[in-house]
């Protein structure tokens, strides 16, 4: 419908202490689209998000947003000083131009009405994520940016949150830019996936990306590093090479028991 994108990042580069974090990244977010940034830890997902949000200046490249674009941002972490007594509604009232009615609406919509008068310091991970999501929704976003929205949330909660996101997109008619380290969970919730590892490894429809060699290589490696999560069992076939490799290595070091141990681990 609209030809002008909501947000457009062009040729973004950024280095921290000579380490290239963002290497010539371009991306476009169109109205109503759900885009997921995916990649291993430290691949620049959060940094890219911050650059796109204008919280961090890129070394080179540019970010253009539609005029007066309302962005709702749900950060990965929001550390609160414990010495600030603050209730959930008190926290949400800090959203610029929020009304009591809006706050009540979103608390209700996200099923956390009962938390309104509770201290923000007493919430579980999942509850806090929902409060942060409510805060992002309170700005009536045209673009919703979610950085690892399911962190610290149990599996059931993760599924619920990922079901919620497309529903919210439909309710608000907003675009969603989401950061995740797990493609399989977000697969059904996303229109486009961009796989990052400093540079854009591959991008496109989730099904296409999950079969892309660049994606497989990236996530295979991750398994090897031992930072893979339970959600990756179906990838194991691809990673068997690497695993097998290590096991042989272990054998040559005369540690025959390792094999059984790793089997348990698998």
């Amino acid at each position, binding site marked *: 419908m609209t030809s002008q994108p909501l947000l457009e990042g062009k040729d973004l580069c950024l280095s921290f202490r000579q380490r290239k974090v963002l290497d010539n990244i371009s991306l476009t977010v169109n109205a109503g689209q759900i885009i997921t940034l995916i990649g291993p830890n430290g691949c620049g997902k959060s940094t890219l998000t911050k650059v796109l949000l204008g919280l961090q200046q890129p070394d080179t490249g540019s970010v253009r947003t539609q005029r007066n674009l309302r962005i709702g*941002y749900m950060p990965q972490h929001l550390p609160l000083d414990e010495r600030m007594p*603050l209730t959930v509604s008190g926290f949400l009232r*800090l959203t610029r131009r929020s009304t009591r009615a809006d706050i009540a609406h979103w608390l209700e919509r996200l099923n956390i009405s009962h938390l309104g008068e*509770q201290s923000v310091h007493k919430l579980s991970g999942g509850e806090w994520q929902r409060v942060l999501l409510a805060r992002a929704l309170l700005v009536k976003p045209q673009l919703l940016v979610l950085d690892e929205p399911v962190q610290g949330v149990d599996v059931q909660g993760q599924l619920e949150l990922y079901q919620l996101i497309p529903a919210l997109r439909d309710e608000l008619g907003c675009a969603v830019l989401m950061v995740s380290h797990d493609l399989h969970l977000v697969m059904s919730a996303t229109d486009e996936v961009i796989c990052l590892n400093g540079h854009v490894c591959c991008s496109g429809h989730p099904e296409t990306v999950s079969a892309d060699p660049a994606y497989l290589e990236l996530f295979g490696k991750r398994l090897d590093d031992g930072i893979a999560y339970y959600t990756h069992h179906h990838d194991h076939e691809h990673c068997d090479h690497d695993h097998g490799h290590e096991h042989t290595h272990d054998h040559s070091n005369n540690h025959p028991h390792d094999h059984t141990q790793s089997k348990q681990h698998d």
Partner: protein
Amino acid sequence: MIDGFDTWWLMPLAAGLLLAVSAGPLGSFVVWRRMAFFGDTLAHGALLGVTFGVLTDLNPTLALVLGSVALALVLLPLQLASRLSADTLLGIVSHGTLAIGLVALSLTDGVRVDLMGYLFGDLLAINEDHVLWLIASTVLTLTVLIVFWDSILAVTVSPELAKIEGRPVLLLDLVLIMLLALTVALAMKVVGILLISALLIMPPAAAHALSRGPRRMAAIASVIGIVSVAVGMWSSFHWDTPAGPSIVVTAMLLFVASLLVPRRN
């Protein structure tokens, strides 16, 4: 209660109470933003303001305030960086400014300097002029904090979200720090350089146990500050204890008492 109805103590008492009122909310922000070290640095740097006043013919209070505000501006980048914790650097700057102030002051010719007065407060040096300054600064501080409360609090809770929501983060940081510099400069005569940050931190720390919301905590901190000043000065007049330290001891006792209040929620 007070023997021989002298009125010389009215000015110091008024100064102390005014200070306590603005130190409540300002100190709360210092606590929430973990700026204690920054407050210390500002206080230590206030000696440079004194030197500045001695060297120029400016009104000493004006020179002090100008010096403090200038120092705050120079240190602003440091404060922003300190959110990422720059402990050592802050320690160097904080004690460095104190030492530079002491050295500079000793080099000014022909002026006898009462170091103890600067370090621990000097009630006798508080005159009407100083109280007028404090009235102005208290009114300014409270007005700004009340009018911009939501914005400053939002920036304190999350500068990132505040920025994305379109709040002028840098400007709000700047305003808060200017107010802090002003208050610190004027607090020097009352509690002394070394104890200013105690007056900023202890009342809010004590108020924490009694409050459910940030507004409430700031208000209760003011009340606790007022009680500390009143009790501290009273004991100073009666037992001839030094006023600044007596105020801080009272604040500390109130803080300890607050630990006994059972936690709610």
